[in-house]
């Protein structure tokens, strides 16, 4: 390819990426912009990214004081951490069995995992709802955590990663005296840190942002995760007052964005590692 052609191709590629990138980013930028503006400017016909009168302090103060936003955030942290921890505790041994232990029915089991991967969570909502009712755990953290502890995606991702670890490592560990579970915790998982990180991000993001399930099982503010909190805030407190609402939304997504940016490299490595081999 000649040099001008290369430049042209590069320009086209960048143009496409920039367009799609800005389409994805626009709502977020708009949200942050609104969270800085006074009510009068929100629907003004002239479009500006930065406010004429800075109203950030007022908006953010209202968001943090009028709704129990810190409480929602803490709930989010508790629920997401518990889900992630339990998911890893269940997925890693399951994935190890599927990747490195020979037993009858292994392929069938893996087939079930793949089927689980295909079923959207909403399909299971009704049976899970009834199960939660049966267990009497409505309006508790347990109701928010329990339906998610088995993650087919986690099992699948870890299995792919574990498959790429040589059998000899497992053999060496068995000779060194490690039990099968010790092999999972001491060898397989530490060797799969990129996968663990990628999975953590996917898991935390989806449960931090989940609105559907908390809406079904939680009524009291005490247990509301951030997304549900914001929705009730919008209904009850803010009304048409979008400034504080946007401020609240910004506060809620900030931890995710920051942690993703910090761990971006491992995230991509973790999601692509299985497919390269």
């Amino acid at each position, binding site marked *: 390819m000649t040099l001008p052609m290369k430049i042209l191709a590069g320009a086209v590629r960048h143009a496409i990426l920039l367009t799609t990138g800005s389409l994805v980013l626009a709502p977020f930028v708009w949200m942050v912009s609104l969270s800085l503006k006074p009510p009068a400017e929100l629907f003004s016909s002239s479009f500006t990214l930065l406010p004429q009168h800075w109203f950030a302090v007022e908006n953010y103060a209202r968001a943090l004081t009028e709704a129990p936003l810190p409480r929602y955030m803490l709930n989010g942290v508790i629920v997401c951490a518990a889900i992630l921890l339990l998911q890893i505790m269940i997925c890693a041994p399951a994935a190890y069995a599927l990747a490195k232990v020979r037993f009858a029915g292994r392929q069938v089991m893996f087939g079930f995992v793949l089927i689980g991967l295909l079923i959207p969570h909403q399909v299971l909502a009704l049976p899970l709802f009834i199960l939660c009712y049966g267990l009497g755990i409505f309006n508790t953290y347990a109701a928010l955590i329990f339906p998610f502890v088995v993650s087919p995606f986690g099992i699948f991702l870890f299995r792919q990663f574990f498959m790429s670890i*040589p059998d000899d*490592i497992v*053999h*060496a560990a*068995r*000779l*060194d*005296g490690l039990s099968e579970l010790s092999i999972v915790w001491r060898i397989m998982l530490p*060797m799969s*840190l990129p996968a663990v990180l990628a999975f953590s991000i996917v898991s935390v993001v989806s449960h931090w942002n989940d609105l559907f399930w908390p809406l079904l099982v939680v009524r009291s503010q005490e247990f509301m995760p951030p997304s549900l909190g914001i929705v009730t805030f919008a209904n009850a407190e803010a009304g048409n007052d979008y400034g504080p609402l946007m401020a609240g939304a910004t506060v809620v997504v900030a931890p995710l964005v920051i942690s993703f940016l910090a761990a971006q490299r491992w995230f991509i490595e973790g999601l692509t590692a299985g497919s390269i081999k």
Partner: protein
Amino acid sequence: MATQMMRNALAGVSIHGISKSFDSAPILNGISLDIRDGEFLTLLGPSGCGKSTLLRIIAGLEQQDCGTIEVAGVKVDRLRPKQRDVAMVFQSYALYPHMTVSENMALPLKMRRLSAWQRLPVIGALLPKTCAVSAEIKTEVVRTAKALGIDHLLAHKPGQLSGGQRQRVAVGRAMVRHPAVFLMDEPLSNLDAKLRVQMRGEIKELHRRLGVTFIYVTHDQTEAMTMSDRIAVMLNGQLAQVASPRQIYACPADRRVAELIGSPKINLLEATARSEGLLTVAGSALAVDNKLDSGSSVTLGIRPESLQPAEWAGLNTLTGRLRYVEHVGADLFAHVDVPGSSEPLVARLPVELASNFQSDQIVHLQIRREQVLLFSADGRRVSEGDARVTPLRSYAQ
């Protein structure tokens, strides 16, 4: 004497009728082998013949279909790998990449000497005795590392080491817990030629120093010849011959073993028995000591060094056209086309004769007839009629 007997019983390995198939493809076929205490036994065979599989079965990492394994006189078939007193060095080294060299080497000791609670990150350190045991482990790791000359690498991760250093760490990890049996699966095959020769010597020296049983797997005949007390030649999932290197070379049990050992390869020529004690081969007559039926066809095996230049054609002398000579420093290898053979005959000649030979000239090669090997049509060696070439059994002592 009694204690000697005890020790023999304690650290030898007995393999009885081991068979193994993968997905109905038979890989091992009734392997039986007794390995003495403190012996260096090499499993030699081409790639894919099941050597690693046999080693994994001995270690307990793979389950045999039938047969039993005894280590130290005790049946170990139902024991888990860690309960058998064996350690293994893998072809790929199989070091844990996320641990330092020191952690890699300490792990087998930690798993054996510390309880599950004591191994926990924070709580473990608070429990009684954890510190004392950990310190003891640390000392042993350092001592082993010093013995292998890798003590300056203890804080490194395996990824930062060269191939030779990784190899030593793998040996160190196997060594720290003083196993009764060492299993080594082609430990040198990932090293370059120079390092391979050096490590060959070091492993041999290690065996001499530790005095425990080594079972060493390789497909490299030089390694097998130079390191072993005995070689077990594996072909198609069966043991073709188990004997000392000297004996395997001098009296291979069959044609495939003869072809596997020796470099350059043994020359194989088709021959026909004429009368008692006389063969015709490549248009020449050869007197042998065997009593063969007249008219039967045999294969003649002649090592390159069993040929010497001769002035004239005659009895026990082959005549052919010289293709080329290879000068490899200490030796001269003449490649000679003889009638009735598609491949050239290779003869090892003294280097002083280099100037005597030109391509395409006719050469005469006399066969040292006492070194000739005869193989029957089914590939087995025809043992000699007289006792000059000693039969297999008497060598075993």
